[in-house]
């Protein structure tokens, strides 16, 4: 049983890690969710004993109820985080018209190039950021839906 758990967890974690190295943000999120669920499975695997369902009155040895309580909490948390991450991907998409990491890092580089000449002045730097005026990357993408 432990071996089965280990192989499954390793498979999920490995797949998640592979997906997280992709350029596409959606796959990256999918990778994050897989890794989170691998951790949840790991909690289940760390149960101290196995047995019948932990409902009273129990007939025979009960399964460890504590890990089930923990994994339930962890599932809720990872669900909330995944939802938040997806909202963020959507916001990245609406502000860049792209979910491709290379385009995003191109935008980041342009930002730092724009910063460089006025880097002497932090205040302007910040005002620039809050204006959110589109740099060239967004300008070229503006034609898209």
């Amino acid at each position, binding site marked *: 049983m432990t071996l089965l758990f280990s192989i499954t967890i390793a498979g999920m974690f490995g797949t998640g890690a592979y997906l997280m190295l992709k350029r596409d943000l959606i796959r990256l999120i999918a990778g994050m969710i897989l890794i989170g669920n691998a951790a949840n499975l790991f909690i289940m695997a*760390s149960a101290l004993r196995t047995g019948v369902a932990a409902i009273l009155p129990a007939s025979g040895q009960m399964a460890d109820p504590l890990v089930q309580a923990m994994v339930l909490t962890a599932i809720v948390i990872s669900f909330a985080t995944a939802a938040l991450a997806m909202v*963020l991907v959507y*916001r990245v998409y609406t502000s860049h018209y792209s979910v491709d990491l290379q385009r995003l890092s191109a935008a980041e580089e342009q930002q730092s190039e724009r910063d460089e000449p006025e*880097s002497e*002045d932090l205040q302007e730097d910040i005002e620039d950021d*809050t204006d959110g005026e589109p740099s060239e990357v967004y300008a070229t993408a503006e034609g898209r839906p």
Partner: protein
Amino acid sequence: MIALPIVILWLGGLLLAVVDGTRKPWGWIASAIMAAAVIATIILGIDIYENGVREMAVGGWSMGVGITLRVDMMGIVFAVLSQVVLLVSLMYEVINDVGARIFPALVLFLGLGLTGLVFTGDAFNFYVFFEIAMLSSYVLVSYGETPRQFRAAFVFITVNLLGSVLFLIGIAAIYHTTGFLDMERIRDHMPLVQENPAILTATLIFIAFSVKLGLFPFHFWLPAVYTGTRPAVAAILSGALANIGSYGLLRFGADIFPRELDQASGVLIFLGAASIIYGGHQAVSRHAANEVLAYSAIGQVGYIMIALGIGGPLGWAAAILYAVLNSLNKVLLFLSGSLRGWLAGAAFAVGAFSVSGLPPAGGFLGKMALFQLSVDQGHPELVALIFLGGALSFVYMFQIYRRRISEASEEDTSPVAVQGLLVGLAVLVLVIGVYPEPLLSIVEHASLALPEGLFP
């Protein structure tokens, strides 16, 4: 009584979540709630200072069955520190007009998470509060809602989610090897655990907290996030959220894994030294002030790591002291660096002196404690390193300050109220430097909460 600060922040956060936080009155109410939490924590702290550790089991369960809240002096120090940092950043943003209706509520929830995780005595509950703090900060990083902030938030969420998952796996491993989730019982049973699983678990937890702190090999996300976010959020991240890392390393390292910490002491000192040199070197070569501060943050955590690596009661005390002063410095610098006017300039100068470790600013104390520690333990190379780090930080702080002066213009000065807020914080840092006895005695008391470990 123990749960009072948590309850205040929780109810306050819920209230603020449904109202329009961009309106000034609500912003001030949020600040008042935060201030009430600070006062409640300090009152609890005075009680603990006099009468020792307080604990209770939540939900009416008997001790040992329910989740325990256990507050010691170290928890109080970090709780008050995080809350003060959040309060200052919140007031700064309220005076400057809050840009998003959810901002005050998020700051309160972040305060709830940070207070909860230092108050809890249960490892899994620690993870839950940790995630409350992280979820609020994920949203906070995107505050400002420009493309740049969304990119920063995305980097932040990806890296820190991995860190949280590693921590969760570490907790599950602790449960499996010791059979307990209560930290005190874990501590008692950890020596019975075989060496290999214990080292693996300790490593997982070390990596998880180092990611939060931005220690050298795990720092890659930090500059992009700190430079991408608004100054108030950068101050919150470096002043309050990074405390999770320092507190977690102290609590789990010194308390639960003293044997593993002792074995890894060389590694910690090496990573700390690498962090100081890398952060200082990068900061000197940068131009934008917030970028310099971001790399400086990487360098400063190196000192905490060295104190932790040397260990022993003096080492814990030095680590706590340095964490406190570093948080105050970072908030002061990130906030005053974004303002104009001579008052803010003066506050910035105090912060710059403090980071470089020049008296009379508070940062001097932290450097002094580390210096003393290295001399006592006979590490001449660390003495040299602390000097080198101090010299580097003096150079980069001086560079930023010189640029500020040369760019200073008469026309645009920030509101006097917000400058006054930072002057208040600067005065606090100065007072700590001139009259350090109260802080030193509190920190010494806090370090006694940790076991002496295996150190001579």
